[in-house]
């Protein structure tokens, strides 16, 4: 399958096989290291353990949600409802905690995530509605419902700070531990399980997947379910970190997730992408944000710099491809 939406679509007929020793993600790792070196020359604080931990903590929610996001994109699907979904989960959590206490609220929040996943999955696989439209619609619905439940206010939630802030192990905050766990599990799922492989097959050629006996609908439904679950975990972490739930939280998170996943090498046309790539994408974006702040750059110029560096990073990746390709 040609990757139709990639610019590589206008490229050589067959993606010539690349030299094996250098995986696709190597260039991204180089970009990340280059950024790190650059920022450490610009700010003495960049390379401190605390700061690196900061980057990880801030990348955690995006990374946790981007993991199943990668799986979905690999199958040629999207979930744009993740941002407002995470905010909605936070509101559900904070609101139900005041009604029924924290344990019940956590269960409700997790259930809400699954329901979000089910609704998206149902609309896409059963009703047959395009994933982009479906999740843009649920994006609006969840944002609205969150606002309605919260009455447009930020809801306070105390006594639920551990998930976001505790450091049970080696002084590493829980969100980072969860991120690592999610990433490792998802990487294994994508690489070694029937489910993961089926998602690749569906993305590569949905028709052939169906004819090979893969239950395409069930699999895609499962992908949305996982995404919903990740959203509920991400939403809970967010609300725990802030001690409060705002229905406006996580605005634009969906775009960060898609950017990270695509940056990590997944193709909008499906069939391509890895968790490792996505993690590198998340870290590159996180490093950019953190580094530019450390450099104390004016907020408007930060936007400009972020855009330029993003282009430079991907441009570098493209150069590498050309350099290494056999054409």
């Amino acid at each position, binding site marked *: 399958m040609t990757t139709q939406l990639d610019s590589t679509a206008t490229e050589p007929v067959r993606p010539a096989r690349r030299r094996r020793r250098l995986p696709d993600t190597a260039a991204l790792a180089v970009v990340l290291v280059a950024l790190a070196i650059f920022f450490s020359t610009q700010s003495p604080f960049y390379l401190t353990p605390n*700061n690196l931990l900061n980057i990880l903590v801030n990348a955690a929610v995006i990374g946790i949600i981007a993991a199943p996001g990668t799986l979905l994109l690999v199958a040629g699907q999207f979930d744009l409802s993740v941002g407002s979904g995470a905010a909605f989960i936070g509101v559900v959590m904070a609101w139900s905690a005041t009604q029924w206490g924290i344990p019940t609220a956590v269960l409700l929040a997790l259930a809400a995530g699954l329901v979000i996943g089910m609704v998206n999955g149902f609309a896409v696989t059963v009703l047959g509605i395009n994933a982009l439209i479906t999740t843009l619609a649920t994006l609006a619905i969840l944002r609205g419902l969150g*606002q309605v439940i919260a009455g447009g*206010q930020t809801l306070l939630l105390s006594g639920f700070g551990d998930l976001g*802030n505790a450091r049970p192990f080696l002084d590493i905050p829980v969100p980072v531990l969860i991120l690592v766990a999610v990433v490792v599990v998802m990487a294994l799922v994508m690489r070694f399980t029937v489910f993961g492989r089926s998602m690749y097959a569906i993305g590569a050629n949905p028709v052939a997947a169906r004819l090979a006996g893969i239950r395409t609908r069930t699999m895609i439904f499962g992908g949305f379910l996982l995404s919903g679950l990740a959203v509920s975990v991400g939403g809970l972490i967010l609300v725990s970190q802030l001690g409060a739930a705002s229905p406006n939280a996580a605005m634009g998170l969906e775009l960060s997730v898609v950017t990270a996943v695509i940056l990590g090498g997944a193709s909008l046309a499906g069939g391509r992408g890895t968790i490792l790539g996505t993690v590198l994408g998340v870290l590159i974006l996180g490093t950019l944000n953190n580094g530019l702040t450390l450099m104390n750059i004016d*907020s408007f110029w930060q936007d400009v710099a972020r855009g330029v560096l993003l282009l430079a990073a991907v441009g570098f990746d493209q150069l590498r491809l050309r350099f290494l390709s056999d054409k």
Partner: protein
Amino acid sequence: SPSSTDNGNDAGDGASLKVGYISLGDSVPFVKLVSDSIKAEAEAAGVELLFCDSQLDAAKALACAQNFKTQGVDGIINFQVDETAAESICAAGPDVPVVAIDIHQRPCEKVFVGADNYTAGFIAGEALGTYFQENFDCEYDAFVSMEQPAAGQVNLDRTGGAIEGFESVCGALDDSKYRSVDGGGTIDGGNTTFGDTLTALTGAQRVAVVSLNDDMLLGAFAAARAQGREGAVYGVAQGADPSSFDDIQNNPNWIGDTAYFPERYGELAIPSIISLINGETVPENVFTEHVFIDASNFAEFY
């Protein structure tokens, strides 16, 4: 690096002090003016100011606080969106004095600088009420509140104040004439939604409009103009950003604006934080002046 020359600032010398400033979101014109004045004052005082834009997102503000902790700041000026999340943000930041701007940052807030959103809103609404009382005997065909519900508490304070200010003059609002419109806080959002709303107010000659900020009122007047009905709209806004100056002076239907004087925030916040860091006692609340600006008194202030 800043030299230690005394620049005559009242609050004393800020040299070698490192202050972190969390901006609410520089993309908001009002906030940008606040940020500029804080930067300018910091420079004048010789303070090294670390800037971090929270982009109207409490989670980003939290990251800013962590960042400042890493960089070892001596004090923080915190202007972040969510009062409710303040406790966590305080906990994430370093244990240094905090000056809050416009939005309370308890428990670590030592000084609160800035506006009283409710009062500012009240002043605007009251002025509009007075205008309607004097000219139309408090008769109006519709009362439209241009809001940004997504702004949470600030929205409630500002629009709530404006409505109550109007009611304080003209009595309780007639519910059938009241409309709350979400203009998203932007000029184009205000334009679209007010345009639609105005269409539904066919024949209305006296539409009273209170707006959370200048941009949405600008948008509302643009929509009225497009329908040839700018004469039917009477509005007040809050902020008195430079973009409103022209209308305040020249548009008879732009009744006026509550000024927040964002360009003066730095003069209040920077000395406060320096004094706090130096262990001096400072008043807990430093309110900015709220003045209702209209064509008659514009020249006095700008």
